[in-house]
């Protein structure tokens, strides 16, 4: 009778040892020196307010002078407006014509007062409406398929779409979509292929209304591209780490879908542009960073929008254990979104 339990205990111990050995020998990000340094004069960000969100899976849809608008990945028509000091929040529902069909799981809302847009790139479908009425109607049916969309004015958008060349190679490409003809203009040779064309060019796009500049930041290499709204490259900048080539492995499935076949070397999470600065949420530790800093902080490197030069680093103290998924900067305030919390930080200029 004792036998099976002795076996069970031995088995659990053996499995634990085996898996821990695997873990000990696994490649972990930030395990080795990354070969770069951050400036020794960091600016500080102080957590001033935070708000528990009613649901998970929010993203930042935009902001006005008074409010920050959050959209939700799992409820495409839901919109949450939060005021500047995070004290008051209001829930809204976008109104679309009854019976309208679209790929709602992929739909994203963009708030650009006085307008609000909802777009989904698989059909593709774009909706437009006024922020005060929230009744949405379809427009720009001449657009192209896309996997990222950024509104730049009420008549034009920048998309990231998949371009297929004559030999069938797929690659991400930036394009401009406008309400007047030609509706779609491709931005050739802006995103550069390093591995597979899709994953290796993945990244985030942000637009700064004030300067009229767009910044595309790659996830897996130390590079960002600053563009004007006609998709002319102003310059190519580099983040301070040393990953000039994407460290990713991609397997080609016979179904035509590609998948990572090894953990990707994530470098940069997200870029946001504000007040002539590019804010980059970084994943890698510098050699002069405290090795434990990311346990309780998020690291944001700040670059000049004029020429892409590195300025300084902001260390954001995390509230709780949730990592930041998205953020935005407005004046001296930084709003950071995690799974269930929206937090406001005040940036202290030294």
């Amino acid at each position, binding site marked *: *009778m004792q*036998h*099976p*339990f002795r*076996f*069970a205990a031995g*088995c*659990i111990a053996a*499995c*634990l040892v*085996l*898996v*821990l050995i*695997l*873990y000990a020998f*696994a*490649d*972990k*990000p930030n395990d080795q020196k990354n070969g770069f340094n951050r400036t020794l004069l960091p600016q500080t960000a102080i957590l001033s307010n935070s708000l528990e969100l009613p649901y*998970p*899976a929010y993203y930042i849809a935009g902001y006005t002078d008074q409010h920050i608008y959050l959209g939700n*990945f*799992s409820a495409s028509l839901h919109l949450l407006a939060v005021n500047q000091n995070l004290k008051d929040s209001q829930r809204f529902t976008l109104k679309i014509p009854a019976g309208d069909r679209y790929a709602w799981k992929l739909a994203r809302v963009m708030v650009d007062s006085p307008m609000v847009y909802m777009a989904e790139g698989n059909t593709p479908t774009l909706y437009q409406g006024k922020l005060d009425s929230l009744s949405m109607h379809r427009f720009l049916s001449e657009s192209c398929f896309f996997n990222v969309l950024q509104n730049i004015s009420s008549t034009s958008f920048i998309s990231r779409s998949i371009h297929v060349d004559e030999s069938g190679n797929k690659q991400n490409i930036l394009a401009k979509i406008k309400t007047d003809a030609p509706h779609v203009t491709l931005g050739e040779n802006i995103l550069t292929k390093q591995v597979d064309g899709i994953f290796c060019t993945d990244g985030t796009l942000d637009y700064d209304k004030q300067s009229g500049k767009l910044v595309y930041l790659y996830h897996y290499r130390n590079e960002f591209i600053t563009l004007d709204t006609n998709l002319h490259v102003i310059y190519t900048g580099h983040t301070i780490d040393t990953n000039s080539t994407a460290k990713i*492995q991609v*397997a080609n*499935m*016979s179904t035509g879908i590609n*998948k*990572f*076949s*090894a*953990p990707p070397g*994530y470098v940069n999470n997200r870029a946001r542009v504000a007040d002539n600065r590019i804010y980059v949420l970084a994943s890698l530790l510098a050699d002069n960073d405290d090795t434990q800093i990311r346990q309780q902080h998020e690291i944001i490197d700040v670059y000049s929008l004029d020429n892409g030069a590195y300025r300084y680093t902001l260390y954001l103290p995390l509230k709780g254990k949730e990592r930041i*998924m998205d953020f935005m900067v407005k004046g001296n305030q930084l709003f950071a979104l995690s*799974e269930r919390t929206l937090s406001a930080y005040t940036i202290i200029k030294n």
Partner: protein
Amino acid sequence: MLRKALIETICVLFILLFVYTAVSKFLDYENFRAVIGQSPLITRFAPVLAIVVPMAELVIALLLVLPAWRRAGLYASFAMMVLFTVYIIVLVTLSERIPCSCGGVISLMTWKQHLYFNIVFVGLALLGMWLYTKQPGENTTRTSPVHA
């Protein structure tokens, strides 16, 4: 009788589980191979494990089918499920990014459900092992003539 029925049920559940998961892994082999490569713990062994894991599952299912090997099969099932469970726990607690083919929020839920599911099966295997060790005395005297 109840004990025998319980053992039979547990064995059938494990056979179904292992055959089903092994076959689905083989059917979707290239995808399975890519996705397990994304796990930081086993990236290096992914090509080997992609074959060894489903093969081992089929072998265990076979052991459970053959009465003479059923006891060994139950022990092996237990070992396999403990290994999977420990692997999940270590991956979820120690790894910063959990590799999963589905997106953020959903994958988190799935891992948790997966964990509960595994723990239930670990419990079942343990129960099977325990029942089996209590059984041999009766097994030889009473039940074999019925079968014969």
